[in-house]
């Protein structure tokens, strides 16, 4: 794990006088599960939008999969996968239509889409549901499907923005099995979550407070540094002093 696939150096984003992201610097090596934690309004989404080529930084530097966030945002968008709880799939398209649509968006050939769809449907055990509208599926299935669709073009990096909210504890664990399996294949996972036990599943975790990264380490070392029994306690210790609460 030496290849750095995400590198940020004093990356910042200002909205007028408001500093949403304040000089964040970190490296993420290939195949790492990198947990990106912070309170509501800490600046996580803004940082993630910059790293996925959706928002131009104000200052600093960053590369994602070797592409520059200032000059090559389109190349970044094509190279990464992205999934968020809020928007991922079209509810009024069927399972297969969604897969075909996103395969097309990422420029896969018709034969590749067919092959990928069949594989993905089999892996997820959705054979009986291919013609069902995504809106009618249980949330846990939607989440697993959304993750697989975000990976349809074999991205090197996948960004997951609160992917697991609201599901039962077994489904949540099945989702993390998919994440682990992808990381095992060398895919880099950049994930935000409000579940602190999920923070423990990450190889390393950063905690953002008021736009800045206040801590970055393995969960084990973070707990040692802050003399805390759980990641929940570490998070609470760092984030309770936050001044901001805007989303």
């Amino acid at each position, binding site marked *: 794990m030496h290849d750095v696939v995400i590198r940020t150096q004093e990356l910042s984003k200002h909205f007028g006088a408001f500093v949403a992201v304040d000089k964040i610097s970190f490296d993420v090596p290939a195949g790492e599960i990198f947990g990106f934690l912070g309170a509501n309004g800490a600046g996580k989404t803004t940082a993630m939008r910059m790293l996925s080529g959706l928002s131009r930084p104000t200052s600093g530097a960053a590369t994602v999969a070797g592409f520059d966030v200032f000059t090559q945002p389109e190349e970044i968008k094509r190279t990464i996968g992205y999934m968020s709880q809020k928007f991922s799939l079209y509810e009024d398209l069927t399972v297969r239509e969604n897969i075909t649509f996103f395969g097309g968006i990422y420029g896969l050939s018709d034969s590749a889409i067919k092959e990928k769809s069949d594989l993905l449907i089999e892996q997820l055990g959705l054979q009986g549901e291919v013609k069902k509208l995504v809106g009618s599926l249980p949330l846990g299935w939607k989440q697993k499907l959304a993750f697989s669709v975000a990976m349809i073009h074999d991205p090197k990096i996948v960004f997951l923005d609160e992917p697991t*909210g*609201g599901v*039962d504890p077994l489904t949540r664990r099945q989702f993390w099995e998919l994440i682990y399996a992808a990381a095992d294949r060398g895919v880099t996972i950049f994930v935000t979550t409000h579940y602190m036990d999920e923070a423990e599943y990450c190889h390393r975790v950063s905690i953002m407070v008021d736009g800045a990264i206040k801590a970055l380490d393995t969960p084990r070392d973070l707990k040692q540094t802050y003399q805390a029994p759980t*990641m929940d306690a570490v998070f609470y210790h760092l984030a309770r002093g936050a001044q901001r609460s805007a989303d």
Partner: protein
Amino acid sequence: MKSTSNPTSNAVVLNGIGKTYENGAVVAVHDVSFDVRPGELFGLIGPDGAGKTSLFRILTTLLLPDAGTATVAGYDVVKDFRAIRGIVGYMPGKFSLYQDLSVEENVNFFATLFGTSVDENYDLIRDIYVQLEPFKHRRAGKLSGGMKQKLALCCALIHKPHVLFLDEPTTGVDPVSRKEFWEMLQRLKEQGIAILISTPYMDEAMMCERIALIQGGSIMSIDTPENIMQAFPATLYAVRATDAYHLRMDLLAEAFTESCHAFGDEVHLTLHTEGIAKAAGMEDVVAAMRARGHADVEIREIAPSIEDCFIRLMGQHHA
């Protein structure tokens, strides 16, 4: 004839409540019975799709049950719906205030709707409202998630309800704001308001006096969190090694493993206690994992959490 509420009765009583959608094709809630005592903080713990919202809508008289009966403050949810609407506070899972009214306008609107004023019950909301006061001229739609949640709670409380219904108020909220929200609820409880709250976060179960674990429309268990944890029927172990992912895979492959789930950086394990697959105990597990290449295995016996109990009950329910 007008029914009257009985102050000594339970705040909420459900008796065999059932609800289906799409002409019976979708079972949302099946044979649910429980009660919430006066002044109790009662938690409905379960994931998306468990039936929590259907129960809230039945109890707040927004949805008719297909089976069973229910009362709120002694009033029947079908016959006495008007009486119930005046004495309950309801915070739905989806933000439902007026986005284009200001904070102050929303609170005044709901106070007026219930025939009261902000001044009359200010004591009840003071703690929460002071945090909103700096933004009182801001439109509700422009508030942050945490602030919206506080405003919604204020509006649900403004008429000093007998029973407060909170449907997933902390979903998607960060751990610090979640803690603050529960602290506010503890203070409300001290004022004697019964609270029925739902959450998908298992750790929040510990903040309730009693909980119902709900999954697939049915209640799996109702008791105090402590009793539910004590009723866990097996010895639970936490196993740890550097490579937690492959540790779990390797434990799953062992015949002695009865159940095995990831919990943070550990794996929670129960063992078969009879038959040929029976393991003698912790030493067997350590030896087996060493043989599979995990040099640094640690194992210890632990007390189960609500999440352990929930996962186990889910398994029994499917079986």
